[in-house]
């Protein structure tokens, strides 16, 4: 077996911006004093004249991004998810969402895997916040390959896009040579007939591991990667509901308002089947190593397997 390569999607974000700069001359990058952490620092180094630091002022940064887009640029506004989606929510809603401006939000350090910084920086509400804004596209890539493809897809899409990236290095599961990213389309990574696990972000790899474990127990698990949470691939979700009869969702985000909610909404309307949501259970995080936190909060292959067994039993 080949060695598992790990990379944080924030690194992919920084690398993708640099790689795409020549191709998209209107691409411009903003940050709010976190360039070293969000990895836009790579872009700053390569294209200093296309990088503008806004200082520790995320509200203004989002407004500046809106103005840049209104004047024909394609700005990526970067900060931690907590500040990009949280602190600046109302600016994103009114200055970017309402005028439907071509702003791309590069939000890194999403979720509990921020680790040691603790609850104030562990944003588990951003998907919920962003997907309620009309016309906002929300992408949560699973690995390096997908994150890079997502950045280009965001550029090619005319309208506001929220891109969610992580701090923790996660396994590369998609082959860059063959991978095709289609905005708004889920990806069936593993066929299965007993249950569907719909996962997003770093939970996609956990879902694949869980599926492998469960296969050994005779349980056939379909694994769907939902990289675009909005617009949601309802067709794929409903088909999974019809064919497997039950769905388990897995996300590094609150169980309120994120992928689990989006899937439940789609399933309720078109094909009601039991949906079990794995995520952060309406609680704040706390300090600790990211890997330990993920285990503690049940964001693991083991926990997915447990919940799938329950789902099968209840069928």
């Amino acid at each position: 077996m080949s060695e598992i390569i790990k990379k944080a999607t924030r690194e992919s974000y920084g690398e993708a911006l640099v790689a795409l700069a020549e191709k998209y001359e209107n691409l411009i990058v903003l940050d709010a004093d976190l360039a070293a952490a969000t990895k836009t620092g790579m872009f700053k180094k390569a294209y200093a004249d296309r990088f503008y630091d806004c200082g520790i002022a995320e509200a203004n940064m989002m407004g500046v991004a809106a103005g840049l887009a209104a004047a024909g640029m394609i700005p990526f506004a970067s900060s931690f998810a907590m500040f990009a989606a949280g602190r600046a929510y109302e600016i994103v809603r009114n200055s970017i969402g309402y005028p439907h401006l071509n702003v791309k939000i590069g939000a890194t350090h999403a979720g509990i895997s921020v680790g040691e910084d603790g609850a104030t920086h562990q944003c588990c509400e951003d998907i919920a916040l962003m997907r309620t804004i009309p016309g906002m596209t929300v992408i949560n890539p699973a690995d390096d390959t997908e994150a890079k493809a997502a950045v280009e897809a965001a550029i090619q899409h005319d309208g506001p896009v929220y891109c969610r990236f992580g701090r923790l290095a996660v396994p590369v599961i998609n082959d860059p040579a063959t991978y095709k990213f289609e905005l708004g389309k889920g990806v069936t990574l593993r066929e299965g007939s007993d249950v569907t696990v719909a996962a997003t972000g770093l939970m996609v790899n956990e879902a694949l591991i869980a599926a492998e474990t469960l296969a050994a127990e005779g349980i056939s698990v379909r694994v769907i990667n939902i990289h675009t949470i909005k617009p949601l691939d309802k067709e794929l979700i409903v088909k999974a509901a019809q064919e497997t009869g039950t769905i388990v969702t897995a996300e590094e985000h609150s169980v309120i308002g994120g992928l689990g909610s989006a899937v439940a909404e789609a399933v309720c309307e078109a094909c009601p089947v039991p949906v079990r949501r794995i995520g952060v259970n309406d609680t704040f995080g706390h300090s600790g190593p990211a890997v330990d936190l993920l285990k503690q909060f049940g964001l693991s292959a083991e926990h997915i397997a447990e919940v799938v067994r329950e789902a099968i039993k209840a069928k």
Partner: protein
Amino acid sequence: MDEMLKKQLRIHAAHIRMGIIEGVYHAKSGHPGGSLSIADVLTYLYFTRMHVYPDQPDFAERDRLVLSKGHTAPALYATLAERGFFQMEEMQTLRHIGARLQGHPCITIPGIDMSSGSLGQGISAACGMALAGKHRNDSYRVYAILGDGEIEEGQVWEAAMFAAHYKLDNLTAIIDNNGLQIDGKISEVCSPEPIPDKFRAFGWHVIEMDAHDFDDIDRAFREAEKISGQPVALIQHSTKGKGVSFMENQVGWHGTAPNTEQYEKAMAELKAALKELEA
């Protein structure tokens, strides 16, 4: 300023004030006070300084204006109508269901450069537009109009810091200093004063002007255009409700529509003023 031009501007401003009253009256809601206080500066900008094209509202090289104090949209809409972006009669549809003239500026309306209305946000968008201009070496200018109460929003000062840092000398922020906000006098609610000192401290070139004297407005904007390396804060000393006697300096006319009797009285005053100008 040339007397003929000044007279023309006064006539445009009178039409715009009538449009404001028409709009707010027919909407049965809206913000007449702060709309009337910026009618003259909008007239001056759209009829003398700004390169705008009613038949090509999205022309890339146009000058831009962001009404950061977006609740005074009636003033901007009436100005755009007077300038030929749409018919003045459309003011009567302001805030109506199905109408395009929304309660606050909306980017889809011809001539509106940015949706605004949540206070403190427009100035940031204006900074972004000015930055794009600098970045590409475009020659357009960007104007933002803010309320004196609006500058209590923290985001305004984030933007102020940003504009000075990036030397956005293609940006002019007009602060409509009429001294009143919803809850009373700005000096009593939560004072943002001294306003000129604050902008100076943030690295802006500050110019003060009489908001209702076209000679002084002209002087101020000519000075603003000569400034390089700094954004300009143009603090205009204005009268809330200017032009309608019973609305002037009355905090109650911040966000109240006139009833029929008040509407007729206001229109009669404005028509009399216009008649005098046209005589």
